[in-house]
């Protein structure tokens, strides 16, 4: 179980890092999504991996699983979902304005002036 989770986090992080180093926006967004999945699993595991135990202590329970990390994961999922939506919209806007989705901003000029006026 631990090996499965650990290698899952590791694989997703590796794939995510590989993808965010690509030159186009779309793989970068996919990479960010993979990274957020990896971190969600990681947070979940930071409350220790246990099976079949209740999150709230009751009389006669053998132990409990940490409920806080589950709340943290929930928060992290909501936030990363919102952020993904934002970056998709912005990348779409940038693609429609420029006609390509390369991530480097350098096409002939790099002085970054006269933006949008």
């Amino acid at each position, binding site marked *: 179980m631990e090996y499965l989770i650990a290698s899952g986090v590791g694989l997703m992080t590796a794939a995510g890092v590989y993808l*965010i180093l690509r030159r186009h*926006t779309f793989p*970068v*967004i996919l990479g*960010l999504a993979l*990274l*957020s999945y*990896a*971190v969600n699993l*990681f*947070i979940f*595991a*930071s*409350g*220790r991996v246990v099976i079949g135990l209740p999150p709230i202590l009751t009389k006669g329970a053998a132990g409990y699983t940490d409920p*806080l*990390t589950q709340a*943290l994961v929930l*928060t*992290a999922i909501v*936030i*990363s979902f*919102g*952020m993904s939506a*934002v*970056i998709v919209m*912005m*990348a779409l*806007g*940038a693609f429609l*304005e*420029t006609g390509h989705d390369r*991530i480097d*901003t350098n096409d002939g000029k*790099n*002085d*970054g*002036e*006269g*933006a*949008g*006026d």
Partner: protein
Amino acid sequence: MTHWIIVPVVLPAVLGALIVLAMRNDLLLQRVFGLAGTVVLTGVALALFRAALLYPPEVYLLGNWPAPFGIVLMLDRLAALLVLLTMVLALFVQLYAIGTGWDAQGRHFHALFQFQLMGLSGAFLTGDLFNLFVFFEVLLIASYGLMIHGGGRDRLRAGVQYVAFNLVGSTLFLFALATIYSVTGTLNMADLAVKVALLPPGDMALLRVGAMLLLLVFALKGALVPLQFWLPGTYAVAPGPVAALFAVMTKVGAYAVIRVYTLIFPPTAPAIGPMIGDVLLPAALVTLVIGAIGVMGAGTLARLVAFAAIASMGTLFTAIALFTPQATAAALYYLLHSTFATAILFLLADLVLARRGTGTLRQALPPVAQGGLLAALFFAGAIALAGLPPLSGFVGKLLILQAARDQAATVWPVILATSLLMILGFAAAGSTLFWKAHATLRDPGPEPPATAALPLVAVFGLTGCLVALTVFAGPVLRVLDATAADLYAPAPYIAANALPAQD
């Protein structure tokens, strides 16, 4: 005083939502409500600051859950100082945005502005590490909207990079938090401070990893080398008033470093030791050098100011990295000063851009309307940011040099040499922008249209803050000394949380 602590978070949240829902088609109403909100927030911040000076740190239990279980807000001198700084800056920036009509160039400027203020004050006030992450996200998501305000190709593309960068930063933040939580079992800052000091040696390696990952996140926010390269591209294309407001965003990174590495992972903790300062100091010095070189080589005024902002973050982190009360007080003074100075220069860059259509420094162009006035303001801002007397930059750098006497061999030459480079860069830019402009004038063109007074009022107001910071350097420093002393004696801060006894 109890419930006032949450006002800087709740008021902008409600106001922002109200502006989106009820007045999204009426710019005048948005302006009135937005500005009124910021004025009230400044008043509240002043009252909180006064309370923080008079009374020991105060805790605010969200949902009335006791300290290590619920989320807490903490009001201490550092938090109150930074909330006050944010609100004063925001007030002038908002006046500027209204005066120049920037807020009319896209939708929802005032709503996003309020959400930005909510995120900033939340990040300063929170006493919970995970809540700090949440407020980071709040202020970031508002900043994404503000950054691309007004639209345009360059801005959108720079915006995508900025968002992607910060999403990676958020992921790192979560990895760090999970690592720290898995070792200590808590995320309340005061509780962490207690638990970290008592940690068994076996867990120290993981904790160190967590502390280092957190430093990486804060370095990304604070534009510390090697994570500074997002800043020039972002700030240079962001709308002028937004870039000026972002002057306090990098300071969030600096604040977080000060808070976390004096309270939770102080150099006295056996698990951490001098590790953080050892990493931070060289990085800060390299940041300073890179910023100064960027000031020399920048092609537009906005990029020049962005690099000057990087250099000022380098100076600030140099002072923070020393981790002594004296150096931290100097760092806080420099933090106040550099926020105002950077904001002034970003606003000036926007004024020049609006009058001339370009902020290029590569060639001299005809003079702009009110050129003399802008030149004088640029002169003041440049003097302040480069650290020449008589303005507060000089006082700030002097304090930092004094605090770094023990490391004089490394710190002094870098700070002094980069100051010289920045003076040269600013002088070259100023002469191209304002001085040589007169030589290009063969026939006086048509008289430029009259310009609004409000933007200049805003810039003058910020300059007034700098002058006040210089004139009242003595009283300000006394307050900052007390603030820094609090940071290195965190017992009252921890006691305010009323943690249950350790088992």
